[in-house]
Every structure is written in C-alpha cells, then in structure tokens.
C-alpha cells in the first residue's frame, strides 16, 4: 500500500512535468518572432532566414519540434542561446551559460535553507509551547508583519538599515566569480538575510499553527491525563504527527525560494539563474527562457513531490496497513 501510494505520486509528478513542458513550449511559441529572426536580427534576408530555420529544425510542425525539444532536454542538451554571438552565427550553448548561474542560485538558496529551516522550526515550536504568552505574541506579530510586506520592500528596508544607515554591508551583491571566503560571505549576506526573513516568517507561522492544532487533539489531552511530562508530549506525541504537514510547508517554501528569488536577485543584482532568465526575457532569448523556466518548474515539482512523499510516509495507516 505504501509502495503503491508512493509510486502513484511519482507518476503524477512526471505527468505534471510533461504538462508544464507543453505549457512552456506553447507559451514561448506564442511570443512574436522566432529564434531565427532573433539570431539574424537586422541581417535577416528571407533566404538566410529560411536556411537557418532548416538548420534549427524549425521547418517541422510544432508537435515534432516539441518532441525534439523535449528529447534534447532529457538528454541534457538545453539548446543554443543567441547571447554572446555575433550576428548571423548561433550563440553559446545554454548549459554552459546556465551552469555558473545555477551554482550561484543554489548557493544562495542553500544558505537560506540551512539558516531558516532550523531557526524557523525552533521559533514556531517556541511560540506554540506557550500560546498567548509574550514571546508568542512577539513572534506572531513580527511574522505577520513580514508576510504582509512585499518581498522587494523587505529587501529595500534591509538595504536601508544595513547598507545606507549602518554602512556595514554592500547594497548590491555583484560577484565576479573569484571571490573567496569573507568576500563571498559578504556578497551573499544581504540577499540571504532578505530571503531568510521572508521564508522563516512563513515556516514559523505554519509550524506554530500545525503544532497548536495537534496539541488540542484528544490524544494529547489523554497524554496529559496519563501524567506524561510536557517535553515528552511535544517531542514524542506531537512531533511525529506534525512531521508530514511541516515538511510540506518547508518544501513549499523552498520551492518558492527557487522561483521567488527573482525579485531579490534583481534588487541586489545577484548573478543567479533568475536574473539570467530576466535578462533572457529582455533580450528575447527564447531558448534560454525556456530552459530556465523548465529548471524552475522541475525544481518546484520535485520539491512538492518530496513534501507529499513525506506526508505519505509519515502516515501510519499507509506505513502499517491492516
């Protein structure tokens, strides 16, 4: 039963990804102009356009082109970008362009995850242990305030405090790629701080709500009436039942992190994947946009898949069938 449920969920994940790829493909096809026109730019003549279209396989009907694109994608070939190319030539390989940017984004999100998950869970737990207390009210108030403020404003406020007023940190996070140690950390600090603030607020609130909900259930009352110490009630009786929902919240936030870094990367001019995608949109570099969108969507789907797996596996009915 457990295997079946997991298998079915993975299958749904794969189907979702396929649907997403179709939407991305159609979406980018709807944009005016095609790759050949973009590559050739002003140099385009009808003959050269036709020649390049054949070279790029664009003379095939859309569904064939979709399958070709999907096939390339699955074998790791993300296609060619027009960026960095002279007029009339086909540009750089997208995978080469993306690799360092993806590393940067992963580095940033990794830092955020490492800091925010344990911190947010601790704070959520703390708030739920003493509901209505001063510490709970402070935590609830500040998380609610942060959630209500748009992401970029949080970034701006932090810049105002740490870069403008105190002058401790640089207001942009430009990296040349040669940074080491302290320089790297300094560059990452502002965007990380911004994202940690936003992500933690969400996780804290959901952790608190989940635990409070479980703490008011009859089996917790029973544990109290059995004389179980408070610490054990939280760690043994409630935590096991909160894992599913909390992992869900964390995975959702991490998924948001991968996609939602767009604004933060833009504000801080951080050379990550999201910024690359924005640049791609501005220069109408369609293959690049497609590739970036696919990476974001795939990450999202995989993280949600992990969240669902966690709740399937933490469900005792599925783990121990009758």
């Amino acid at each position, binding site marked *: 039963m457990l295997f079946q449920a997991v298998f079915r969920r993975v299958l749904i994940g794969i189907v979702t990804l396929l649907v997403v790829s179709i939407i991305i493909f159609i979406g980018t096809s709807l944009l005016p102009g095609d790759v050949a026109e973009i590559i050739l730019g002003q140099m385009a003549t009808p003959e050269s356009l036709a020649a390049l279209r054949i070279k790029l396989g664009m003379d095939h009907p859309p569904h064939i082109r979709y399958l070709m694109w999907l096939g390339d994608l699955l074998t790791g070939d993300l296609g060619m970008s027009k960026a960095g190319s002279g007029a009339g030539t086909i540009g750089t390989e997208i995978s080469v362009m993306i690799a360092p940017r993806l590393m940067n984004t992963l580095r940033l999100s990794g830092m955020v995850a490492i800091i925010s998950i344990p911190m947010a869970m601790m704070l959520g737990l703390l708030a739920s242990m003493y509901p209505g207390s001063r510490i709970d009210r402070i935590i609830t108030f500040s998380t609610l305030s942060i959630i209500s403020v748009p992401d970029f404003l949080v970034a701006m406020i932090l810049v105002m405090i740490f870069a403008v007023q105190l002058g401790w940190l640089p207001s942009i996070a430009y990296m040349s790629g040669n940074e080491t140690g302290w320089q790297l950390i300094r560059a990452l600090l502002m965007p990380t701080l911004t994202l940690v603030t936003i992500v933690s607020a969400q996780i804290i609130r959901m952790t608190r709500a989940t635990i409070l909900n479980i703490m008011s259930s009859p089996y917790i009352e029973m544990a109290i009436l*059995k*004389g179980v110490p408070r610490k054990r009630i939280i760690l043994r009786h409630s935590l096991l039942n909160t894992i599913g929902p909390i992992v869900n919240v964390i995975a959702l936030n991490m998924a948001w992190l991968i996609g939602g870094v767009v604004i933060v990367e833009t504000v801080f001019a951080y050379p990550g994947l999201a910024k690359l995608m924005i640049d791609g949109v501005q220069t109408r570099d369609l293959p690049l946009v497609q590739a970036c969108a696919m990476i974001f969507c795939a990450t999202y789907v995989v993280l949600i898949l992990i969240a669902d797996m966690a709740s399937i596996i933490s469900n005792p009915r599925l783990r121990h069938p009758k």
Partner: protein
Amino acid sequence: MAALLEVDQLKIDARKDDGSLSPIVKGVSFNVDRGEVVALIGESGSGKTTIALSALGYTKPGLEFTSGEVRLHGQDVISMPSEEKRLMRGQKVAYLAQSAAATFNPSLTIGEQVTESPVLHGQLNQEEANQRAIELYRALELPDPEKLGKRYPHQVSGGQLQRLMAAMALCGNPDLLVLDEPTTALDVTTQIEVLKAFKSVIKQEGSAAIYVTHDLSVVAQIADDIVVLYAGEIQEHGRAEQVVYQPGHDYTRRLMNAVRPPPAAGQGDEMTGDHEREAPALEVRELSAGYGKKNNGNPSIRVLRDVNISIERGHTVGVIGESGCGKSTLARVMSGLLPASQGDVLLDGEPLQPDLKNRSRSELQKVQFVFQMADTALNPRQRIDQILGRPLEFYLGLKGGEKRKRIAELLEMVELPQDFAGRYPDELSGGQKQRINLARALAASPEILLCDEVISALDSIVGANVIELLKRLRKLTGVSYVFISHDLSTVASFADEIVVLYAGRVVEQGHVDQVLSPPYHPYTRLLIASVPELRVGWLEATMETQEAKAGIDRVVRITETGCPFFDRCPIKIEGTCDKEIPPIRNFGDHHQIECHRSEADFLN
C-alpha cells in the same frame, strides 16, 4: 476510614470571551469509597465530565476551579503543585475517554501507549510493563495478546480499541478509574461486551471508579452509587437499586421516562389506513450498491446486496443494524446521492433515475433527506428563514409574503417560536437545530422523509421529544419515514415495519410486532438481547444466553458465499450456511427471514 476520593463543595467556572465567569459546577459534594463504582449521570451541560476530570486535578481549557476541594487519600489534588499532579495522574487516578479512536495517538504503537504511564512514573520497567499489558489484554479478552502491543491503533476494531483504553488506564494499577461515557459510541452488541470486560476487570483489580454517562440502563449494570446531575448541581444521590427502582427526584423520574422500554412487540403506533393506496410510496427492488471502482457493473466494495423493501404511504419503516451494515448507504441510494449499481428505486410505482442529477424536480421534491448532524447540515452563515426559504422557492416557487407565511407555519409545525426565523443556527441548541433540520426537509412538502440517525446525537429527553414531534408530523402531513437508527428501542416505539440489515443484506423484515416476537432471525434475537435494560443484574443474565456467547463482538464479514452471519450464529448448519446464500422464509403477511433453517425449524 476516610473515603478514597472526597469531592467537597466543588465549584468550577467557565471564563467567557469578555472575561466574566459563568458557573458550570455549583458546589458539588460526594465520596467514592475503595472498590466502589460511582456513576455521574446527566444530560450534556450537566457538568458530569467536568466533575469527573477534577479527580485528576484537571479542567478543560477555558474552565477554572473556583472553590472547594477534591481530596484523594486526604490530599487536595486541585491545589497540588503541577509536578505532583503529573505523578498522580496515571499512577493513582487514570482516565478513560469516550472515543478511543481519537484518544489513541495514531503514530505510536498500542504497546507503547498502554505501557507509557507506569514506565514514565518508574512503577515498572519496560519489560514488566509489557508483561502486565499482556495480562490485561488476556483479562479483557482481546485477540492475540502477545502481538497486540506491536500493532497500531488503526489496525484494531473500535470495540477492541475501547477495551485497549481500559488496559491503558489499568496498566499503572491506579486506585481510581475515571470512565467518561466509554460505551456511548459503540453498537449494542459491542457495548455489552465492553461493559462486561470493564466490570470484571474493576472487580478483579479492586479499584474504585467514577463512571460518567447519560444512559441509566448502562449505569444500572455497573454502578454501586448513582449521582444524578442537572446544570451543575446534584439532584439525587443514592445506592443504585434505590435510584433505579425508587427515584426520589422529579428530574430522575424524567430521565427514567426518557429511557425506552426494551424492544418488544406491541409498542408501535397503531396505524390507521387513511393514507393507504395500492402502490407503495417508495420501493426498492433487487438493489445492490457500493463504493469504489466499477468492475463488470459491480463496485469493488459492495455494501448492499439484493435488497427488497417497500414503504407504504404514511408508514414508518425502521432500518436497524450495527455500524457498517449499510443503513446510511441505503438512504443515500434512495435519495440518489449514491447511484445503485443494480436494481431499481420506485417512487409511486415509477422507476426513479439512479442518479440524483437525472431526477426531475418533482421527483427530488418527493424524497427528502434529514441528516444525522444538524450542526453540519445547516449552513452557519444563513439565517433560519433563508435555510427554510430556499426549498420553498426552489420546489414550490413561493416568494415574498407567501414564503414568509409558510416559514411561519413550518416553525409552528416543529414547535419553535416565530422569532427563530431571524436567528442563525449557532444561536440554537442541539435539539432546536435538529427541529430546523426537519423543517428544512418538510419545506419541500415531501412524500418520503429519509431520517438518518436523527436523534443519535441528542440527549435522551431531547431525543424523545423529537420522536414525539415526528409522530405528530406524520399524522399532520401523511409523510412516510425511512427511519435509520442503531437504537432498536427507539425504532420499536415508533416504526410500523422494521428492516434488519446485516452486512448489507436484509436478514429479516416485517411488521414491528412480527419482527420483535418469535420467530426471530438469530441476528435479530442477538440485537434484542443486547439492548441494556433498566434493571440491576441484566448484564450477567444476558451474557449467559446462547446468542451472546456465540455472537457478541465478532467482526462483521461481508462474504461472497454463504450467509454473512455464519460466524456469529448459534443455530448455524455447518456445510450449508457457509457455502450457500440463504433462502427467504415467509411467515405470512410480509414477514420474511433470510435463513437456511426452514419455517418448521423456526416454529418449533
């Protein structure tokens, strides 16, 4: 010698949202002696659970101890420091809740939860606690005691879980048990098994107990002393025999009157033939239904099989059976909420579309559903006049003044004041909500009312009033009822005909007097025998009968071959009953029993 537990002038208040206090328990005093069972009896809101929990020095969130003492071994548990309270709980006083299904943590093994308290309190080490648990499983007649501890709560049945909760409470060898309606949610056959187990274990262990319930018949079986409560005050307190046989207080007598006599022939209403016509109002023929994916036209989980029932105009057909027998599914199929997989539903002799979506408006109007939980059936954001007005507009096209007039009539029919039209459901009590729920169904002017456990969630006095209302409404409107209930006594007092369902099959049906007098299907006999009677010593007598020995608390199995009741039947024929589907035996005048035993066998 002082009593084990002394409750002395106990007062408990509830703190409202605006900070003011309102009294819940108003100065209650009583004692519990060693080896004695004291029952707290009363309706919801009487404060019985609140008083019982005070024996553990505990109140539900939002309640506060105001004054008085609860002394255990002479020491006040209310003013005890919290660490001492913790050590006392589970070790000296243990608690059994109403719903074991909600009380067991779904993620931990049964064994861990049963042995947790004594191990944490340092009374036993894990090994000894496991041994003790296994002994208790044996004493409570639970299956496979050696391996039971490794299982999870969802892997055992409801009745077993209820007994496991007793094991959990007893594992730490407490001096006092607090039992909070531990059998209320159970079927009658399961209830008497659990009662018997509780009673013998309490006797064996020599512990004292506080037993909270609203059911006088249950109390009569288990209590030495009875405390009758109303609105946080003691109305009457005395020995069990005295309170049961010579109640001194008016309120106790009212409670007694609400207890229905054990089901027997001759209690049903005399029906006049006023409304009768040739075709039955509603009929189901060769009906099968179930849930899950369809396979060759049959659902993967078949709940109902080959059901034949007809409901005469103006009659009440009671459908009874244990949980899981398919009662609610039958109502859902009749209403079209669940399309049948085979067979027909006929309204006035005309076949109805199986699916609700394909039925015409007038067909929908004629069959109305009254759900069990008025709380969830009524939209909390709509006023009563909106709730009642909707069917009036939809089915009858009433508007404006006409609609208001009809709403007023409906409120009068269900005996509620006119100003209720402007209220919201949350402002009403449970019984009042159920009346609105009924009025909503009646607004459509139906011919058939499907009532699914409509009084199960109500207190006995309130429930009895709703039954009286149903009787009057039938006389007034000529409506027919399909009255689904697991409570045989209620059905016996109210229905014209009874249909007994077992594992999705009709095992017996006929006029009330026929079903409730011999010849019986063995399952009907078991059900009748299991209804607790308001007399001391009933439990012991019943457990000696052959029906009880053979059939009580066995799991219902839905079989593809043979008679589903085979496992529990005291008169089964090996080799026949387990192989072939039983034939229908006719005893005249529509009285039918599905059994391999012949008519002659039954009449001897």
